[in-house]
């Protein structure tokens, strides 16, 4: 155990985590130049393209310092607030963390919350000032920020560059010298923390863990304590660039287990692996059954594809246990699923994976959070779909989830950030200057308000100089109503939304306007109305189509026209019918595009 060092990296997106990780692998000769492709640890296409780490990864390096061999386990962490529970489990598996800060940017909100998480778990923090090769680097200012935040000795901050390789050996030395070796009872009952699991189509689920006490042996009869399931360890080993089978993985080390598990949902991140016959007294603290935060309906574009969609969702669930879904049906959209996601990014990822990996295009309805509605008899109902909200006269009150939002921005943007947050029903809780021109603002606000149209607006008003993070705060009562949209008098269930009463009028008007742009003219007039309960609060009219005919149709026009009409036909086929009105797919996401 003396030779093992377990560490993770905390960094804001784009501050150079993946690049620096690549350098560490290279300098420890874990990979040679030949094997190198940029961002070795990000192995999903989606991760490489978006430049974010979605899944955790782990890799073991061997490094000799002053004649002594060491084993360094790097546990990479997901870089998005949607996945903060997974981050917490990765942190719990380590004794140290590299805090990477871009010397030209400074510390961002997300970094701070992960940093605090690491400090809570007693991790040794090694601050790294990255990208010092950049002409725009402001090493002294950013060092000030780090010193202020951590109260560390200025000299302990390591200047580095993932690009030039400067400082990489200093980082390796610091990991060995400053990160404590793992402690644990090597002879006690097996106790290992699962910090991630991946799905392999040939081998099933591969769970990654950190052994706290005892060891995990090949062939051992193990038990997953929180799930209450047991398995035989078909294969155990350590994580090199590929899986490296071993007879056992000992206390302090990081490894994997393959035990014939078929579905991701059988393995929960944060669970404890122990010996079946000689179990540990208690499981490792901090386990949570992660709950979805955002819900949306997912429907096949072609109604006949429902079965295919169902199968694809099941397959996705094999390797992403955090997605939950159940069948639902909508008068407008037909058969589909109400799905729960960890956040908006997670939703986008699932949507993209359905398209890429399964070739299915879906209609996603406007996302909503999970509400608690109390009826007149004080019965509580969980509302994950706006259509489930009872009419106002049967509802006593409704609660919605709130969050604590932390935003770090430059002082010149404070005004606009504040007014955005107020606009989003935020209540200012705190503001502190991190440096002379960087400020951290804390708000309490409803989660629903950040679900749509928050990140983009934040980015725009701050020209990108604002970072954002949030923590759930629990449920609070709010004046919420269900806004219905009607086309020629018929409500379109898939367009209903739960919103704050004070926004109903304004939002209803905007949605009607947007729908007017998105719904094509038809042979009759179409009335678009927004209503709350029985009351109509906004209306737009689409006039009847008067003329839809091409002027010329001669030799040179026929082919082009055929293709045009074929396209039109395909578009029509994908439309949904409500009453006599045909609605294009794009309309179902109208609420998300009000500012476009």
């Amino acid at each position: 155990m003396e030779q093992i060092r377990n560490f993770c990296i905390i960094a804001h997106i784009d501050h150079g985590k993946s690049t620096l990780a690549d350098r560490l692998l290279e300098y420890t000769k874990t990979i040679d130049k030949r094997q190198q492709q940029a961002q070795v640890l990000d192995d999903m296409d989606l991760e490489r393209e978006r430049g974010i780490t979605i899944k955790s990864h782990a890799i073991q390096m061997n490094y000799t310092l002053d004649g002594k061999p060491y084993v360094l386990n790097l546990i990479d962490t997901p870089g998005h607030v949607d996945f903060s529970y997974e981050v917490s489990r990765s942190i719990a598996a380590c004794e140290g963390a590299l805090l990477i800060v871009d010397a030209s940017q400074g510390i961002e909100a997300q970094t701070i919350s992960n940093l605090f998480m690491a400090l809570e778990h007693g991790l040794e923090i090694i601050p790294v000032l990255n990208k010092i090769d950049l002409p725009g680097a402001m090493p002294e200012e950013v060092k000030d920020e780090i010193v202020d935040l951590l109260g560390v000795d200025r000299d302990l901050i390591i200047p580095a560059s993932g690009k030039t390789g400067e400082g990489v050996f200093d980082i390796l030395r610091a990991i060995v010298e400053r990160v404590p070796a793992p402690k644990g009872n090597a002879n006690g009952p097996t106790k290992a923390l699962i910090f991630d699991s991946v799905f392999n189509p040939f081998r099933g689920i591969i769970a990654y863990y950190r052994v706290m006490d005892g060891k995990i042996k090949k062939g051992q009869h193990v038990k997953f304590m929180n799930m209450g399931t047991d398995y035989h360890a078909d294969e155990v080993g350590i994580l090199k660039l590929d899986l490296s089978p071993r007879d056992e993985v000992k206390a302090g080390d990081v490894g994997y287990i393959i035990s014939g598990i078929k579905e991701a949902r059988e393995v929960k991140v944060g669970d404890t692996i122990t010996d079946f016959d000689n179990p540990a007294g208690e499981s490792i603290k901090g386990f949570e059954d992660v709950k979805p935060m955002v819900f949306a309906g997912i429907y096949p574009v072609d109604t006949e594809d429902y079965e295919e969609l169902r199968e694809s969702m099941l397959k996705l669930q094999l390797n992403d246990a955090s997605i939950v879904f159940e069948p639902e049906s909508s008068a407008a959209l037909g058969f589909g699923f109400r799905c729960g996601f960890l956040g908006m990014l997670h939703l986008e990822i699932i949507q993209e994976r359905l398209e890429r990996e399964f070739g299915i295009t879906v209609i996603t309805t406007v996302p909503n959070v999970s509400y608690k509605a109390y009826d007149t008899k004080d019965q509580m109902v969980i509302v994950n779909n706006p259509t489930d909200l009872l009419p106002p006269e049967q509802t006593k009150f409704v609660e919605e989830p709130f969050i604590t939002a932390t935003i770090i921005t430059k002082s010149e943007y404070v005004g606009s950030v504040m007014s955005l947050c107020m606009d989003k029903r935020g209540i200012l809780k705190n503001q502190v200057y991190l440096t002379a021109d960087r400020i951290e603002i804390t708000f309490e606000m409803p989660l629903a308000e950040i679900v749509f149209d928050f990140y983009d607006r934040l980015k725009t008003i701050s020209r990108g100089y604002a970072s954002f993070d949030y923590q759930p705060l629990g449920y609070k009562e709010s004046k919420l109503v269900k806004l219905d949209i009607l086309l020629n008098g018929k409500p379109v269930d898939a367009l209903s939304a739960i919103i704050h009463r004070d926004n109903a009028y304004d939002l209803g008007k905007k949605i009607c306007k947007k729908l007017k742009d998105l719904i094509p003219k038809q042979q009759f007039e179409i009335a678009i109305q927004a209503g709350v309960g029985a009351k109509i609060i906004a209306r737009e009219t689409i006039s009847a189509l008067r003329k839809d005919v091409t002027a010329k149709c001669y030799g040179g026009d026929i082919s082009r026209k055929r293709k045009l009409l074929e396209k039109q036909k395909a578009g029509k086929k994908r439309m949904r019918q409500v009453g006599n009105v045909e609605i294009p797919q794009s309309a179902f996401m109208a609420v998300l595009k009000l500012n476009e």
Partner: protein
Amino acid sequence: MEPLLQAMRKELETEKDFMGTRRLESVYFGGGTPSLLPAEGLDQLLQDVNQWFDVVPGAEITLESNPEDLEPEKMLTWKRSGINRLSIGVQSLGEEDLNHMHRNHTAADSLGAVDRALEAGFSSVNLDLIFGSPWLTDALWEETLDWAFHSGADHISAYALTVEPKTFLNKKIAKGEWPEVNDKRQSEQYRKLYRYAEEHGWDFYEISNLSKPGHRAVHNSNYWKNRPYLGIGPSAHSYIPGLRRWNVSDNRKYTLAWQELQPCFTQEVLENRDMYNEYLLTRIRTTEGVDLPELLAFGLTDAATLEELIGRAESQGLVIRQGTRCTLTLEGRLLADGITADWML
């Protein structure tokens, strides 16, 4: 003009067997401004046509022209070369309209042109008209029609002004500098035209084409009858059932290619389904309409499906049925594209 003309002559000779027959019922000089072609060039091309093809007696030989080009001497040489039909790009009689469309001629040019064409002995004259522009008042459209129906022309092609993407017109409208094209006005003006045709006993045989009885344009009609055609020159389209191709649009590329006797075109092979869709989209625009047995003969659809589609349009007053044929009503004509898309496969 000379090298381009030589290229076209080469193409004509090389492709003379493309259609599978050398019998020609019509020749059409159009697209761009062929009336700017020197009279000798035109004469040369027609001689070539006669050399390589079997032009039937009384074949329709049309030249597209602008009103300002119709000088008496020029017209005489055209006639002598064999042109027997003139299509005149009148577009509008409104000065404001013509200015916005960047036309070089005036209304007076157009009024005189028809008379001169008739004097020169062209018995068959087509007038190209554009309606539905923001500057064409209903009164002016009526005046235009009064003139057109009594001008001596035996054929009118009337097109609704179309705002194509990326055009000057489109940009002006997008910037808000010019008023938008109003589809209500366009449909009203089309209705007026339809009434005029009825009142004058004209044959409104295709959505944009009408003639005195017995004076339909042979050439254009053939586009809607699945007949083969051979297009010569840059951008020209050629067709035989199952295959379409179109030449490069760039004059220079076209000319260089033919200097090497190297055709330069894009082609598409038409599947049965494409042919079905093209049958629909061309035929439905004509007074002959689509013929159900002919549609079924493609073997792609069944009678019940067709009955349902047609029945729906019929109940909406968009089509009527005459025997096995199905044609558009006036309301149907105004919505022809949507109906076609609905019926297509």
